[in-house]
């Protein structure tokens, strides 16, 4: 299965105009400064926002086509989508959360063992740590048997040590997954560590030179300078 997307959307400070495609069993990392349109791209893939024009095709399924007025709702795209926080439903405990849209409820137990949160099944989300919540959110997404997994800065709200641990586990796990993963981050270390492919997005456009500029520490603009600070900080760990 290949995802091919090309779309345009007018945002407040710039126009998003991007096209990319990538194939199955791959982890594509979308990287770029905060506020550069990465989350909007992910939300459009998920069907939560509508591009002004363009096309999103998954395999032989058209998810969005502005010319033919096709817009498949998020419910029908069968994706996994994990964001920084707020994935879990506060009224349910962790196992109920993970089983919320599970194809096979029995699998959820296995996922909990793999993600090492088997002992927290009956806890409510506010009673566990941020890292444990994100582990559960990934279980929730995987239990649905997604066709694509979207991870939008899933570990950004976590402390550096937890983040590094989860990042390693994810790298280890991605080999077993038979679907494409799109991972959004603004952290260069994370991108280089996880990616099979890298898609640098700056102000709504692909900018292949961005990483080099960041690494060579010659940021061209004030915006890039600000964005670069945090990734560099994380090189310490």
């Amino acid at each position, binding site marked *: 299965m290949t995802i091919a997307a090309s779309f345009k959307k007018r945002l407040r400070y710039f126009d998003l105009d991007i096209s990319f495609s990538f194939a199955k069993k791959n982890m594509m990392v979308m990287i770029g400064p905060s506020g550069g349109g990465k989350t909007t791209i992910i939300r459009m893939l*998920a*069907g*939560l926002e509508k591009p002004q024009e363009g096309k999103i095709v998954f395999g032989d399924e058209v998810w969005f086509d502005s010319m033919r007025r096709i817009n498949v*709702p*998020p*419910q*029908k*795209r*069968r*994706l*996994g*989508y994990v*964001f920084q926080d*707020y*994935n879990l*439903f*506060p*009224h349910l405990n962790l196992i109920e959360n993970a089983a*919320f*849209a599970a194809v096979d409820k029995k699998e959820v137990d296995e996922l909990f063992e793999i993600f090492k949160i088997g002992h927290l099944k009956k806890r409510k989300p506010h009673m566990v740590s941020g890292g444990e919540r994100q582990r559960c959110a990934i279980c*929730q997404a995987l239990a*649905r048997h997604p066709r694509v997994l979207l991870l939008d800065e899933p570990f950004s709200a976590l402390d550096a040590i937890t983040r590094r641990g989860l990042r390693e586990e994810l790298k280890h796990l991605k080999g077993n997954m038979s679907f494409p993963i799109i991972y959004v981050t603004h952290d260069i270390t994370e991108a280089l560590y996880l990616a099979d492919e890298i898609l640098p997005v700056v102000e709504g456009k692909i900018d292949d030179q961005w990483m080099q500029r960041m690494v060579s520490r010659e940021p061209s603009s004030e915006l890039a300078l600000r964005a670069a600070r945090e990734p560099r900080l994380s090189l310490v760990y």
Partner: protein
Amino acid sequence: MDYLALYVTLKLALVTTVFLMVIAAPVAYMLAYSRFAGKSFLEALIYLPMALPPTVIGFYLIILMGPKGFIGKTWGMFTGGSLLFTFIGITVASIIYSIPFAVQPMKAAFSKIDRRLLESAYVLGLSKKATFFRVIVPNSISGIAAAAILVFLHSMGAFGVLLMVGGSIPGETKVASIAIYEAVEMMNYRTAGMIALSFIPISYAFLLLINKLNDGERT
């Protein structure tokens, strides 16, 4: 002691609450989540019964529910009867009188739910309806309960609207607040006092319940 009037009051409050919760939920949902032109005008219109004197509401309801009014005519076409001076008539009046007290707390409770939770549910495959019952309702249950209690108490206390639309027919439209008024008019302070006294524990208990719900939400 006018047990019949108390019975009509409680029956009216209960029926009003049940119907109004069902009616108000989609309205509150729309006000909390939809964006459309003229929304603030519609919202103000929905809250209008809260700001109008009960007799003004009663007056317009008489016009609407009378044999020549739109609602009265439609009702007459299907049932052959009149809405005025009937229990169903005062139920309709009581529902309209209490609409703001159902919609406002429910809308507030719905608005408090993080939008991302709903989006997460959509991505997980839940329809909007399933999301409402599986995500929105369980996460705003104390707001919904508060709305129900407010409606119940408010319709227990209705007087002017009901008197105008329903008059005072024992067992049908004579509610406790009207019974108190009539007892006092006839200088029958003992009867009035008994009915009045029976309100206090009911109202007090419900207010305690609201406080408890609010506390529960905070922790």
